């Protein structure tokens, strides 16, 4: 446990000094600020647009941090051979993988927290600048605490993406791992279509393949509750709980597979 915490601490320390996450957070904050200007041009829709863009910024820039840093974490260590020094210390290979994962989750947590604070500041400003009439027309209050539920699920989704990035980077090149992770992220959002494949194709084998892919590929659609939250619709706690459980199980399976591959790997 101590070794995992130490590896995670080093990942966190190195990541927060890298310029990539900073620039991502700055871009996200700029986007949130820009959303306020855009909302001025759309009568009546302003609050929904600000919230939509804000949550999208947290999600997209979080994804970029997870993928680019996540893949760099293992493949950069292997490529630059810094892994030689680490794996010849009293650290086992599973501890290395778990430490990297925990360190990246911590980095993501801090970055997402920073974006969330910026997001709420923009919302608080819009709230203070709005008239009472405008406030009443909003489907949910500006600084709606339920936005945190959407952000929590974004974070859980990013944990799955991080596990994917880590898994792919244990056996493939950084470029391939990036493409595979981003590809699965996109596929993961349209996963439900695979389940219903049998309704559009007559060939049983293809419908069966669609079902297999549905259960194998990550199903990321349930993590996206942005629309419900923005429009003030309820999100069931059961849905949140089950989605978090799904994230934990899926990431757990990916990490187990990553460890199994990493254990056997030769570092030439």
């Amino acid at each position: 446990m101590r070794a995992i915490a130490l590896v995670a601490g080093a990942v966190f320390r190195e990541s927060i000094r890298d310029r990539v996450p900073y620039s991502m957070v700055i871009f996200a904050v700029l986007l949130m600020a820009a959303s306020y200007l855009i909302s001025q041009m759309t009568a009546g829709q302003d609050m929904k647009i600000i919230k939509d863009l804000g949550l999208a910024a947290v999600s997209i820039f979080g994804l970029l941090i997870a993928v680019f840093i996540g893949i760099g974490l293992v493949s950069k260590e292997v490529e630059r051979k810094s892994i030689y020094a680490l794996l010849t210390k009293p650290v086992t290979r599973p501890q290395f993988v778990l430490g990297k994962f925990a360190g990246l989750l911590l980095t993501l947590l801090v970055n997402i927290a920073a974006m969330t604070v910026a997001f709420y500041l923009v919302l608080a400003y819009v709230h203070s600048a709005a008239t009472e009439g405008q406030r009443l027309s909003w489907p949910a209050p500006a600084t709606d605490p339920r936005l945190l539920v959407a952000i929590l699920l974004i974070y859980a989704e990013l944990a799955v993406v991080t596990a994917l990035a880590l898994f792919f980077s244990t056996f493939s090149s950084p470029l391939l791992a990036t493409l595979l992770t981003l590809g699965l992220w996109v596929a993961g959002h349209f996963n439900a279509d695979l389940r219903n494949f049998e309704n559009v194709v007559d060939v049983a084998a293809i419908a069966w393949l669609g079902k297999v892919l549905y259960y194998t590929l990550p199903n990321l659609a349930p993590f996206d509750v942005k629309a419900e939250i923005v429009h003030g619709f309820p999100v069931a706690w059961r849905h949140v709980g089950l989605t978090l459980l799904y994230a934990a199980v899926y990431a757990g399976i990916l990490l187990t597979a990553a460890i199994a591959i990493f254990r056997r790997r030769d570092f030439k």
Partner: protein
Amino acid sequence: MAAAIETENLTKDFLVGFWRPRPYRALDGLTLSVEPGEVFGFLGPNGAGKSTTLKLLMQLIYPSAGQASILGRPAGDVAVRQRIGYLAENPYYYDYLTAEEVLTYFARLFGIRGRDATARVARVLDEVGLGAERRMRLRRFSKGMLQRVGLAQALINDPEVLFLDEPMSGLDPLGRRQVRDLILQLRAKGTTVFFSSHILADAEALCSRVAILAQGRLATTGRISELVAFQLKGWELIASGVTDELRAALASKVAAIVPLSHDRYTIQIGPGEKPERLMTELGTHGASVESLLPLRDTLEDYFMQQVAAAQARDTGGL
């Protein structure tokens, strides 16, 4: 007492080729034993299998056959790693961390904490000559400075056995001298040092025993004194006051006579000839002897012979 390092028939095949991968034997049946307290030189040209052996010992790669043990336990055992240090060839660490932070991180992995960790980090950084740069981020470090960080991290736990892969690589003459002195200090403390090099002068200056590896096979192993003194190739004598007549008279009796300046010559005789007889003859003819040196095989010569012999051997189709 158990050997510090022991390998038995250690073999490693790598698969080469994308479509039809075929095995390539990088190390072939290495059997070796290094005693505690020895400074052991692992020599060979590039591609001989030196780094492969070190990586097998560190279990960064797994053997295709054979086994290796360190301090009586299987290589790769986490308990063994607590007692060893390893410097990889051309090491690289974390760009955004300082030398002090990297070393503190590694020290804590060994369970060294608090003031003890701070004191050790400061000590090893001073030992490798990086005391002034301790708070600089590694991305600003030169290759030689990274090599020193590498040495420092290998020493952070006061290892009983130290593995160094090309430790002098990337260092300037002063740096090489410091590393040599460091290895000598470690030897005095009783640390076992196993280092690979293709620079023979380093091995001649430091090692009690060497192994020579060529094309993945152990060519020879032994004490430096035995290997270097292996062959007396003859004698070389420098004499002055040699007249033309004397030179003409000597020409048929010696192996070579080469003019240096006006009446000074380098005279070489074979290993079977007695240098005393030549010195007497020179004296009688009024010439004086300035120096007399035995011509022996250097480690360099020996190395070339062994490599040539290994290249001539059949590689077993792999």
